[in-house]
């Protein structure tokens, strides 16, 4: 029985780890100087309503590619909106001369390069992909 329990437990751990990998965090470059953003800040910045970070630097929100599952997940967690609704939202602003949608990083490496080179850049990624080049500035897990 004990022999069976061990592989079962490790399977469970793997499954848990996979669930955890869907956890998204909002990140900036490691040297951005941003300490923490509120949920409302993240909404305002990614929805184009506010274009300045608390540090005073112009904000450069960065989206992942249109097809990336993280992107759809991010907006579901942030504002409970589907990709079509986000597109409709931006269509109104773009075609009435308002804010432009976030620029797009085609890959996570692109995103990290952008974050490292621009202290105003903010993006999102899986928590378990975070490394020393980026800093977590908002966490859905602790601010659901």
């Amino acid at each position, binding site marked *: 029985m004990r022999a069976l329990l061990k592989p079962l437990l490790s399977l469970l751990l793997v499954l848990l780890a996979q669930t955890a990998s869907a956890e998204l965090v909002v990140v900036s470059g490691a040297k951005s100087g941003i300490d923490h953003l509120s949920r409302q800040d993240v909404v305002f910045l990614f929805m184009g309503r506010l274009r300045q970070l608390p540090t005073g630097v112009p904000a450069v929100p960065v989206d992942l590619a249109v097809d990336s599952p993280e992107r759809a997940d991010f907006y579901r967690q942030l504002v409970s909106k589907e990709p079509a609704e986000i*597109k409709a939202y931006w269509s109104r602003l773009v075609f009435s001369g308002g804010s432009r949608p976030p620029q797009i990083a085609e890959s996570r490496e692109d995103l990290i390069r952008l974050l490292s080179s621009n202290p105003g850049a903010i993006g999102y990624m899986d928590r378990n992909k975070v490394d020393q080049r980026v800093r977590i500035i908002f966490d859905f897990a602790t601010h659901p």
Partner: protein
Amino acid sequence: MTFHWHRAQRCGFRALAVACLLFSHAAMADSDAAMAPKRFELSGFGTLGVARTDTNDTQFIRDQTQQGGIDKSFSSKLDSLIGLQAYFRASDSLELVTQAISRYGPQGDYRPEISWAFAKYNFNPNLSVRAGRMGTEFYLLADSRHVGYSYLTVRPSVDFFGLLAFHYVDGLDLTGIVPLGEGLLKGKVFAGYSHELAPIGSEFLNMHGNPMAGGYVDYQQGHWQWRATMAQMTFKHELPAPVSTLRDGLYLTGVPSAVAAADAIGIKDKTSRFYSVGGVYDRGPLQVQAMLSELRHESATYQNSKAGYLLAGYRMGQVTPFVGYSWTKSKEKTLSTGLPPNPLNDYLAASLARVHTDQHTYTLGARWDFHRDMALKAQVDMIRGTPQSIFLYPSNTPNFDGKLNVFSLALDFVF
């Protein structure tokens, strides 16, 4: 069935050519590295719509810039349109935008026009100025009326937006944002001149050079957005026939009271003012909008009116059903020629009656986001008015009883 789409398409291509021409050298300058934000972007929006009503006793229009309306035959002219935008980021603080649209408009065709063409300068992330041609924002959401993909319904509420006969202003606007409490306080002021025509029967009201000005205060916090707007326009041209003919007749009598009446129904150098408050509640799948407006006209030729609407939608998977209620009601102005029985008295009474509205509308429909960047919509509007409620229709028969049902289908897209 009357389809004008081939014509719309032809004009759309012409609009594209105009936009491309304007920005061709900008496009050539765009040879930047892939990492930088895109400097040049070409995008567009459009609607393919068909609609019909259940009566031939009146003509239903989307707003007062459409020359003719629709009746019992299916028509694509009410809602079908195409728009193209060229965007150029000249520097971090300077952006250039040109937008052309082809829609069924004042001259009864789809001739394309430049509806936006402005330069936007950002002094800092919270303060920007735009100069050039911009969409009018007399009410919340009024500057995106043509972008069907951006809203739930087939068209903006006709009771509420139908009286707005101006779509753009040539001038300046200044927008500022200040964080306040948990939310954002935003303010905008604009001033400029109109450059449009409004159809009056087979004639036109010329609005070229009419000064316009206005502004709003907006607060967004959590799921809420609130806005109060005030805007005004001063007319610089008189109305065409039949009002001009009536005024000539009144002046010719030489009777002071008739001359005074002719002065009162003149519009030149008189101002119309638009006040509105609106609120939007947007929480995940639930969207609710409510707006109220009041229009005040110095000229006796137009009746002061109030309007409002309430719209709610709830997304379930790809489909978002919605319900709406709207109304508009105007108040008669009393005006007399002081003449003994005379045909001019009847003409004046008829002219004053022509601008009356008193109706409400129930709207039921659904939006289906069936494909990326495309939405299909179906909608029924049940308009219930008094027989005297005719201002929103370009023409009607004496049999018109104020009741009207409108059935609409639309395919909205962005690209």
